[in-house]
Each structure stands twice: as C-alpha cells, then as structure tokens.
C-alpha cells in the first residue's frame, strides 16, 4: 500500500489519506478530559524515545547504524514540514493586529497599510519570479528583496556598532572592581586586534620573554588562557542545565504555567 502512486489513482489516495487522517485527528476530541494529559505525555515520551534509543542502542560495527538510524532523515523531514504549517499562526497574528489597526483607524494605521502592502508585494513578486520567470518579475522581486529586505537587514545589523560605542562609553568606567576588570580586558583585546594597535609594540622582539608584552600576544593570552577556561566552565554548567531541562520535558515532569494548566 505504501508505494508511490501516479495519475488519478494518486489523487484518490491523497483524498483518502486526507479523509482518514482528518477523521482521526477530529476524533481526538472524543478523548475524555482526564486522559488528555497522559496522552500528551505519551506522545512526548515516544517522540523523545526515538532519538534516545537511536543514540543508546548498540550499532552494527560495519555500518555504524542500528535499526532506527535510517529513520533519522524521514523524521527530520516530517518535523520540518509540520513546523512549516505553524508559520500561518504568526502571520494570522500579524494580519489581525494590523487589520484591526486599519479598520478602527487607530493612530498610525497608515503604517499598518504599508506593512501589509510590503508583505503581499514581496510574496507575490517572489512567487511570480518562481512560476513566471522573466526579467520583469525578476526585477520586481529584486526591488523588494535586494533593495528592501537585504539592505534593511544589513543596516539594522550594522546599527549595533553605534550602540556598542555608547554602551562601552557608559559601562567601561572604573567604578568597581568588576567594572575595572571588564574595562581592562576589553581594552587590551581591542588594542591587540588592529594593525594600529599592533604597531604600538611592533618594536618588541618576536621571541623571548619580552615578546609576551606585544599587544597581539596579550590579546591571544587573554582569549586562550583566561577567557577560554572561564567560558568552558560556563559551558559545562549550561550543558547540565540543558540536559536536566530536557529530561524533565521528556518525562513530562516539567512544571510552570504551560505545563500545569488543566486541559
């Protein structure tokens, strides 16, 4: 049965699959209230068990795989397709908010019109470019994408450079021991990473004890000897935290608002 089909037979099968799965999903509503939470927990457990079993179960030494390994790719695909269906939830939220703005003539509703126009503009020209590829459609999409989206991305990202300056100006003052430490290490790293800074100590020998005082070597020392072990230790703690949260999620032991609500 699970073989690819063609022609009218395919459409029949598709319709059948839609119908059967639709009925199955709808009939979930018949599950009585007290069984719903256990059902959700079971689904979570089984989904997690796949990866856990795949990782822990012994493997055939020649293929380095066990009987679950081949299902990695299909599961990745299912995961991806299902997540794509969720995109509509976000778009729906955006659409309702801005349609409301426009309908109720809320302050700044013109911007909502612009937002929706831009959204449909890039979507339509993008699809036209794919399905009716011609220079005009290509160019139209390029105006939205290369002119608009790409440059907006680059501009907003580069704006961080300005903010980093005002943050540094404010934060790097030797007010406390901690602030002083922050200030000193940041300044040394900065000096060591540009040629003008490296020029300051270019006169020092490149080997021997004095070479340690060359700014690029100080920077290297800070990054590899002082900051690396600190970040490594943070990472070791974070790893345990993530593992512990995952275990709680997997076994539905997690508590907190979403997980405690009655369904």
């Amino acid at each position, binding site marked *: 049965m699970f073989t690819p089909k063609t022609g009218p037979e395919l459409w029949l099968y598709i319709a059948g699959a839609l119908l059967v799965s639709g009925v199955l999903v709808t009939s979930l509503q018949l599950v009585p209230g007290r069984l719903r939470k256990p059902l959700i927990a079971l689904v979570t457990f089984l989904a997690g068990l796949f990866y856990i079993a795949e990782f822990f179960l012994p493997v055939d030494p020649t293929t380095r795989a066990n009987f679950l390994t081949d299902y990695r790719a299909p599961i990745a695909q299912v995961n991806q397709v299902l997540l794509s269906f969720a995109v509509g*939830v976000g778009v729906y939220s955006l659409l309702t908010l801005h349609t409301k703005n426009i309908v109720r003539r809320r302050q700044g509703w013109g911007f909502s019109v612009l937002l929706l126009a831009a959204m449909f503009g890039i979507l339509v020209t993008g699809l036209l470019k794919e399905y009716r590829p011609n220079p005009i459609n290509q160019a139209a999409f390029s105006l939205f994408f290369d002119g608009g989206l790409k440059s907006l991305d680059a501009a907003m990202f580069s704006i961080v450079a300005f903010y980093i300056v005002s943050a540094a100006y404010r934060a790097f003052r030797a007010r406390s021991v901690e602030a002083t430490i*922050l200030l000193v290490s940041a300044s040394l790293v900065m000096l060591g990473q540009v040629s003008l800074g490296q020029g300051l100590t270019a006169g020092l020998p490149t080997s021997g004890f004095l070479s340690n005082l060359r700014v690029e070597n100080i920077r290297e020392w800070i990054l590899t000897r002082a900051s690396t072990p600190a970040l490594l230790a943070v990472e070791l703690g974070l790893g345990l935290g993530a593992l512990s*949260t995952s275990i*709680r999620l997997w*076994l539905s*032991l997690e508590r907190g608002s979403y997980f405690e*609500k009655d369904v």
Partner: protein
Amino acid sequence: MDHATPFARVFLLGLFAVIVGMVLWAQSGKRFFIRRIPGLSAIDEAVGRSAEMGRPMLASFGLGGLNAQEGVITLQALAIVSDVAEAAARFGNRVIVPVRIPALMPVAEEALREAYTRGGRPEAFQLDDLMFLSDRQFAYAAGVSGLINREKVASIFLFGTFFAEALIIAENGNRVGAVQVAGTPSTTQVPFFIAACDYVLIGDEFYAATAYLTRQPTLLGAIVGQDIGKAVLLFFILLGVVLTALNVPLVVNLFADQAVPWAEMLRPVAPAAGAGG
C-alpha cells in the same frame, strides 16, 4: 559522537538517574535549599516600578526556536516570562510580549493566559499584547525598538536565546530609562546585557531561575541534581588532570568520541599527540 560509547551510556544514564532521582525525592516532600540569585529579586522591583509609573512592560522569551539547540532554552525562558506576567497581572500592569517564532505563538498564548489567571486577573490578558513581530532577527529588533520608544515602557525583561540584536534592544531600553533584567545562556551576549541592563543572570543561573522564582519542588530537585552532576564533573576533571600528569590517559579515553577498548584505556599516548584529535 554519532552513537553512545559504553562509557557514555554509563555516564549519561548516571546523570539521568541522579537528576530524576532528585526530582522524585523533592516531589515526595524533601525540601531543598537554593541560594539567592540577585538578579531575580529585581523582577518584582521592576514590575512594581512599572505599576507606579503607569507605563507598560515588555518581556521577550528570546529568539530561539524549537530545535535541539534552543528549544529547551526557549521553553525555560517562556516559563520565566510567565512568572513576570503573573507578577504583572497582580499589579494590574500591561505586559507586551513580542514573539519571533510563529510556532511558539500558541504555546505563549496558553502560558500567558494561565499566568494572568494565576495572577488573579484572567480578564486583563490582552491578546493584542502578545504579538508575532517578525521571524527575521533584525526586523524583530527594529520592531522591538519601535515598541520600546513608542510605548515608553518602564521595564524590560529579556530571557532566552539572544544574538546580536540583544544590544539594539537593551540600548533602546536604556535610552528610555527602563529598568532592565536579562538572563541568557548565549554567553556572547552577556557582556552587552551587563553594559546596558540593571540586572543580568549569567550562565546557568538562567536554568536556576524558574526554580528560584517558583520554589517548585520538581525544579528545586533538578537544580540539586545538576549540582551533583557538576560535582561529578569536577571529580573527573581533577582525577583526569592528576592522571594526565602521570601520563595515564584514562579519563581522556573514557570521554573519547569513539569507544576505546578497555584493555587500552591506560596505555600512555605518544607525546605531542595532543588532545581530542
């Protein structure tokens, strides 16, 4: 590591047993202690200030999605944001929650509804304040910056996975004079939060946050389990360093990516082979 080595099986199952064991112990009534985490006591203060000024608050549970790397962080962040929302509901405050990942909208909606109910004001929850902004990192940052400036928010809570946009959001918050509390496992962004926010949670303080805020036995138990895990790691590290000094690579071999036969565990490596490989 593609599949577990024999040692990895033992080690990971050990960690699993310790964490689950502590959670179960806590659930059966054992009361565990957890030390004060300074940034977290600031949450109530920040919420209170918002209420005093009569201006809204903004809370983000980060830019992480539901994948293996960020999923658990995002859900943990959502739990913290729910606690913020609960406090906000108690004070009768408005809290704006901009979202980046569409798939998380339903989860966030349910979590916030529940938080307002626990805060005693289910009717105060405004669906319009939970908004999908953009899945694009910097469009999200632009939108949040706009919100911060236009709504003149009085306090900002940033928890979860953050990337370069962290500083854009935090500097705009700083400019409008908002009290800001941040916590993230994204170590690269911590320095910027330190520079622009009033309180910052570092490293796995983030994971301890919900336990500290809610005093839930389950979460407290898990924190104790993690601490035991850290102690075990420290033991292996110290043991390993001493053995390495004696040129016995036992611990390096135990933690190897490919299974090392038991008979070869103690065989010294050739000098200059280096670690990892």
